[in-house]
């Protein structure tokens, strides 16, 4: 069976090679650099000073921890709200009605849209001179643009949250629709015939049904929004800054020490995401064992 083994190895090598050299290689080399190992400028020692600086030094500590807080807040809020919005949308749209296909289409519309475009769209709609503000002034709610609340490029990351909700809701929506359509109706009718009212059906039938998929999707969305660069870069402010943006700016700093700190920050981001994913796996494994 040697020939078959060789075939397997040869087939798997090209993609694995790419992932190892570029992806794991990049992470590894970034990690090395974050430890101060920069042969290009003759530094061969290894220490964790970059990490210490990023998290605890006087210069950066406040920046880091507020940034981390902002990151967590943005990711949690946008994931949760997108999921809720999509859930209610999916539940509502199940029954057939006029314009159902169009609504189906619109709710999934944002899925292939690049995040950048969604972010720009948020600016157009929610900025102080955006569409909503203009509508508000037309109906007399506000006077000048300054009266409209700061929703975009604000220090609570609201604009970022909005942008993520717009895009991720479509993602959740599609997943929920496929689960509900394949399994939901039969169970719901059964529960109905057993006397469950709407709230009970939702709580005891629908929610448990969609929870696994919803949970997995949430992890994906959370991990993505936590580490993504584009949207916070476009919609964020100088202070507080989300961590990926911070990491990138450190990296571009001509000071090579700052470069290590940027790498360290990106590794910290990666570790946080890893913890999350491992936690998720542990949770699902525990659940499987319980069943």
């Amino acid at each position, binding site marked *: 069976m040697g020939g078959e083994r060789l075939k397997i190895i040869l087939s798997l090598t090209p*993609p694995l090679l*790419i992932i190892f050299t570029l992806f794991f290689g990049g992470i590894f080399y970034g990690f090395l650099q974050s430890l101060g190992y920069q042969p290009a400028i003759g530094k061969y020692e290894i220490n964790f000073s970059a990490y210490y600086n990023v998290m605890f030094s006087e210069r950066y500590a406040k920046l880091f921890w507020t940034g981390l807080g902002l990151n967590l807040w943005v990711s949690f809020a946008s994931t949760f709200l997108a999921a809720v919005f999509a859930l209610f949308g999916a539940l509502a749209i199940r029954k057939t009605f006029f314009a159902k296909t169009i609504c189906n289409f619109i709710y999934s519309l944002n899925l*292939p849209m690049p995040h950048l475009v969604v972010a*720009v769209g948020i600016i157009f709609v929610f900025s102080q001179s955006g569409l909503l503000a203009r509508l508000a002034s037309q109906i007399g709610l506000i006077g000048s643009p300054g009266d409209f609340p700061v929703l975009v490029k604000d220090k609570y990351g609201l604009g970022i949250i909005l942008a993520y909700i717009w895009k991720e809701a479509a993602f959740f929506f599609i997943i929920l629709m496929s689960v509900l359509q394949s399994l939901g109706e039969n169970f719901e009718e059964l529960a109905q015939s057993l006397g469950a009212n709407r709230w009970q059906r939702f709580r005891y039938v629908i929610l448990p049904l969609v929870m696994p998929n919803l949970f997995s999707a949430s992890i994906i969305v959370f991990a993505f929004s936590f580490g993504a660069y584009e949207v916070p870069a476009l919609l964020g402010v100088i202070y507080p800054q989300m961590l990926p943006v911070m990491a*990138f700016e450190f990296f571009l700093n001509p000071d090579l020490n700052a470069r290590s700190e940027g790498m360290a920050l990106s590794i910290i981001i990666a570790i946080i995401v*890893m913890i999350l994913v491992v936690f998720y796996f542990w949770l699902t494994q525990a659940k499987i064992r319980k069943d």
Partner: protein
Amino acid sequence: MNNNLKKINIYAIYLGAIILILPLIAFFINAFSFRWFYPQVIPKELSLQAWVRLKLIPKPGQRTFEGFIELWASNPAVIKALLNSLSIGFLVTIVSIIIALPAARVLGLLNFRFKKLIIFIMVSPTILPPIAFVLGLNINFISWGFSGNYFGVCLVHLVPIMPYVVLTMTGIFANYNPDFEHQARTLGANKTRTFLLITLPAIAPGMVVAALFAFLVSWSQYLLTFLIGAGKVMTLPLLVFSTASSGNPALTAAISIIFIFPAILILFFTSKFVSGESGATSGFGKI
């Protein structure tokens, strides 16, 4: 469900839908207006000035076929970025499918030690954020000579794309019956013809889905292109970002419309794939 509740339900859906497409509406108005200032909801002046400024549409009076061609041939920034995005997208899509095909076949049809581990490795680039690897990679690319050129950008695009392509195509092969190939061989078809006439038609739909995924991911890349390209490779997302930061909404909107065009196409194209048939979305619960 009593009627009032039903009505509220439906109106809520409509409201949600309108909210969702507001940005799109804003895009289009911005792109085709001139001096659309606060507090106008409807622009006083519709015009193509944004497109003229971008050198996509010739000035009035020169809007003939030759006029268009001449304008585009002068290689305005938008055309350059568009061509880059398109060509990079096509290139990495094709390369990724070719690389992924044998691996997907082996993963989908055979069982072997470490298979789960290998699948996990293949998928890992989707778990960790790009910033984790691209910073370190950039330094390597500089020393290898891949920084700031087209090839380096294509190479780095492969990283986020490979997992999707491998995963999708593995799913296709998992549902594929290789006996068909043996049947064709016994009827006289050699390995090449078997692949072209039997295997390819069977996996083509899956390949199309994988290709669309891949293209879209490459098309949307900002950070990777920005960093590795080092300012020398200009793609549409980079242009969108820089224009958005500059503050001219009409220009930004116009470029964005070009930018989202493939996404809309793909949406129409795949809506029948996603709504019921594909196992891609229903498989998410099992991740």
